[in-house]
């Protein structure tokens, strides 16, 4: 009973934190990037301001849009939000841990992606369609790479859920294995694509022809745009949590024991910070690549995933 | 000594010889003559067999053969050859030498097939069978090698002679006369057919190329 109560509290805390900190994380990345480029950059809290501004803007609906126009933002946002609830953040053993099956997660991301693509096609407008087509192309490889990575996780952890994988990995005796390194690389590539960062997409770009994620939302404004923006922030958060939880599960709190929470929280914040720094460093280090280079980029990721599986097999043979 | 079988074989040999030398002949007239000789020998053979086996209907067969094949058909064919002035040489589709080699091969096959088969059969019919089979095959060979309808008809006729020879050789086979009559009906239709083709102006020559032309027009 107490245990359940604690888990409930932990889950609620997790949800609240994730939803609250997502804009901050984005702001942090942007800030760091600007700083590393030698600019002052927007204040940390700028994302919150944007959201508030959008709240107060009238929502304009293009006359060519169909009745489904308002649906897509909600679908996209909800899918990402649920994903954010499933991926453990600072502590394991949340109420949602049983739901957090890796494949379900992939499905949720796909759902959000689909909604965004349809939103791009909604008003029959050229750039949105082009962006949706590119997104479709990217997603093909991203999803494949993600699933391939999953093999080695499940085979190591004997559990398909993110929670279970993390739990298995944090009991350190797996140690550092080559395959996990490959898996990490693959996962990072996918994460960069999914969250629309450089080198596959430029979040701060303003040239319609070059944009992917932003271009799909060009026709949206006001509260619908807010949903999309918020979803994008949440997506960044989800991916960082995912990578942090799976690859650096050390020091994560247990929902059952309240005393471990503070440590978990601190470490979680630390991880997010480190990852934000890493991300911004990477982004200033590389340039955006041409659209048709991206499949190769992700194809490499997929290959790494396969290699991870193979090396895992070899390692098992050697170990045995 | 008993003369029955030696004579039978002698006649059989003559018939085979005729059939074989048909292959070598280039001219229709000569082929017709050969055929006539063959038919006459056949009727003689029939008479002889009838005498030897004491079977009455073989005499009938011999009579029919003599009358129709030995006399009427050759005359008719000579008529055709004369009227359609085809006395000129027949062009064969294959050099004579080669066709004769084929003929020898056919005789060899006939012997090869028949001799081992009839160990248990009456030993004498064995050679008869071999001979008549070779006559049949040679006739067919003539049919396939010659272009002129007349030549083909002659080939067919000699095949049929081979059949009758075999029939006469069969000890005590019933219906021999009937069968040979039935065959004759066939032959009659054959020759009539030739006349038909000639009388009706569908093919300006009996050369079957005419038929093949129509065949080429497709469908």
């Amino acid at each position: 009973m107490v245990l359940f109560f604690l888990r409930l509290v932990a889950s609620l805390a997790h949800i609240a934190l994730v939803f609250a900190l997502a804009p901050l994380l984005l702001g942090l990345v942007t800030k760091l990037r600007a700083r590393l480029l030698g600019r002052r950059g927007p204040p940390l809290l700028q994302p919150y301001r944007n959201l508030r501004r959008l709240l107060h803007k009238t929502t304009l609906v293009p006359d060519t849009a169909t009745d489904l126009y308002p649906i897509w933002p909600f679908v996209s946002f909800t899918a990402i939000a649920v994903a954010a609830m499933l991926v453990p953040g600072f502590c394991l053993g949340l109420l949602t841990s049983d739901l957090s099956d890796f494949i379900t997660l992939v499905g949720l991301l796909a759902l959000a992606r689909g909604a965004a693509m349809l939103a791009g096609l909604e008003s029959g407008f050229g750039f949105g369609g082009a962006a949706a087509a590119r997104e479709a192309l990217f997603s093909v490889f991203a999803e494949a790479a993600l699933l391939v990575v999953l093999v080695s996780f499940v085979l190591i952890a004997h559990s398909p859920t993110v929670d279970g994988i993390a739990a298995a990995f944090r009991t350190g005796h797996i140690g550092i294995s080559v395959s996990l390194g490959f898996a990490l690389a693959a996962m990072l590539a996918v994460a960069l694509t999914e969250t629309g960062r450089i080198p596959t997409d430029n979040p701060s770009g303003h040239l319609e022809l070059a944009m992917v994620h932003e271009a799909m939302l060009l026709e949206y404004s006001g509260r619908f745009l807010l949903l999309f923006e918020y979803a994008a922030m949440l997506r960044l958060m989800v991916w960082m949590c995912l990578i942090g939880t799976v690859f650096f599960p050390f020091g994560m709190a247990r929902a059952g024991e309240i005393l471990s929470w503070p440590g978990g929280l601190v470490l979680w914040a630390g991880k997010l910070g480190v990852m934000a720094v890493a991300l911004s460093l990477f982004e200033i280090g590389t340039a955006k690549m041409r659209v048709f280079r991206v499949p190769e980029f992700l194809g490499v990721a997929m290959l790494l995933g396969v290699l991870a599986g193979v090396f895992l097999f070899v390692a098992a043979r050697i170990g045995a | 000594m008993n003369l029955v079988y030696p004579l039978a074989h002698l006649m059989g040999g003559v018939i085979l010889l005729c059939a074989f030398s048909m292959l070598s002949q280039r001219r229709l007239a000569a082929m017709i003559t050969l055929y006539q000789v063959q038919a006459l020998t056949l009727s003689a053979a029939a008479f002889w067999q009838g005498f030897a086996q004491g079977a009455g209907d073989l005499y009938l067969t011999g009579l029919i053969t003599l009358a129709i094949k030995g006399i009427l058909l050759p005359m008719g064919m000579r008529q055709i050859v004369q009227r359609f002035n085809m006395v000129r040489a027949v062009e064969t589709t294959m050099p004579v030498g080669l066709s004769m080699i084929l003929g020898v091969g056919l005789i060899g096959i006939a012997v090869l097939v028949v001799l081992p088969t009839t160990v248990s059969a009456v030993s004498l019919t064995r050679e008869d069978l071999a001979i008549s089979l070779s006559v049949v095959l040679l006739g067919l060979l003539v049919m396939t090698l010659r272009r002129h309808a007349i030549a083909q008809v002659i080939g067919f006729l000699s095949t049929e002679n081979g059949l009758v020879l075999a029939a006469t050789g069969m000890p005590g086979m019933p219906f021999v006369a009937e069968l040979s009559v039935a065959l004759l009906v066939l032959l009659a239709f054959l020759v009539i057919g030739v006349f038909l083709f000639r009388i009706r102006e569908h093919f300006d020559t009996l050369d079957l190329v005419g038929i093949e032309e129509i065949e080429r027009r497709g469908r």
Partner: protein
Amino acid sequence: MHLRLDALSVLFLCILLPQIVASALAERRGPVTFWVFAAAMVLTLLAGDAFTLIFGFELMSAASWLLVLRGDARPATLYAGIAMFSAACLIPAVFLPASSLAFMLVLLGAGAKAGLAPLHSWLPRAHPAPPAGVSALMSGGMVKVSLYILIRYGFIEFGAAAQPWWGSVLIVAGAASVLIGALRAMLEVELKTMLACSTVEHVGLIAVGLGIALRAKAMGNLDLASLALQGALLCAVAHGLFKPMLFLGAGAVKNATGTTSLDWLGGLMRGMPRLGMLMLVGAAGMAALPLGPGFAPEFLLLHAVIRAAGTGGILARIGFTALLAGLGLSAALALGAVVRLIGIGFLGRPRSLHAAAAEDAKRGTLAGMGLLAVLCVPVALLPGVVLGMLEPVIALLAPNSAPAPLSYAPLSLGILFALTAGAAVLGLRRFAVRGTREVAAWTGGFGSPPAWLPFGDPLTQPSATGFAEPVRRAIARGLLAPKGVDPAEAYLLLPLSKVSLRLTRVAEHIRRSTMRQRLAFVFGALVMFLLALGLGEGG
């Protein structure tokens, strides 16, 4: 000619009946052939002996061939050829004792009829030909009947002699179909052709599941077998629901606009909203999105593949990992195809006056689709229950195996969804500015359209072809034959047709032979026989 009913046939009857009802509703008392077709499928499922099975199967082929012929004569011959090929494979197979040869024949026969690669290329041509109801039944039902035969013989009749490599063959064929099907579904412009391609994909998915199950069963790993079977059978159920729905919808679109080419549609959501909603349900299933009917099977299959990757040697590991990649690839491609279907066809601006003037589908069609949509709900939200119903079938196919409970709980996910969405709506109600203002859409910098195009210039919005272009450039070049032709056609059908053409020429030559040549045939054959005889007896 006697009948039998066991769990397997009951399951497939349950898959079949709703489609028949729905198609009948849509076609409103279709032609006699239609009913013969339906009856033949039922007969095949009920068959208790080989003769009845083959009879029903062939009758099904014949009736469907006639229906295809009436629809469009061009693919009919190819279809007939495939049907007879499968017959020629099946009839011997059912008489051979259980052996690898027999199973291969069954696989060829049933696989050809089910559209398994490399014998699938007839399917995207033949299925779109007849009227929508028939296409629906062919795509949702006939394919299943073929798979039923495959299952019946692979697992039950020949079950004793099963070898692991049977499963591997099945998996490879399935994987190929999945990839090619999904890819072509993404590239095709014709609505019905695209749906047919996606049928190939789903058949491939089912085949992969069955193959894993067969392999695992032969290797004695019964739990994996039951997991894979769950996936395959559930996939069959789900596909049997949403694919006919989509085909019926495509038929309605054809009725309303006179075309099924996505390049001439667009904005149908305005003209036919109810149809559009039903299509959304089906599309969610086809794209295997969470909370849709298609996700649970995909989920199970992926888990089965991952589990299978842990069994066997290095080859199995590499193979199954690659297979997983392929499945992921095709899942995303299917999503792209669905987005293309809905986004190009039903959203955006009309691309032709017909599309602009489209009116909603007839009541019969909507009723039929509605029926299927309602049946989708339990598969989508309560897959656990459906799997519970599948228990006896799995017990029949993989005896004394204990299927693991499903670890995907759409119901609680759905609750989370509802909560979040509700929160979002309420939050926006509370804090955001209410109401919306309709404004002219941004033309994207293009000039204003001419007067005779009230809905704007179609050329200024993405076309279906254009939408598929990136995928074509990045993937199709590698996987398909040159010029985007299906590899099965380029490397299998074309050479075969060339060979037959050559032989036909030979036959014609023989037929045209002159009379002397014909005599020569007779004579030569006779001499041959005699020679053989003489040598045979002499030696």
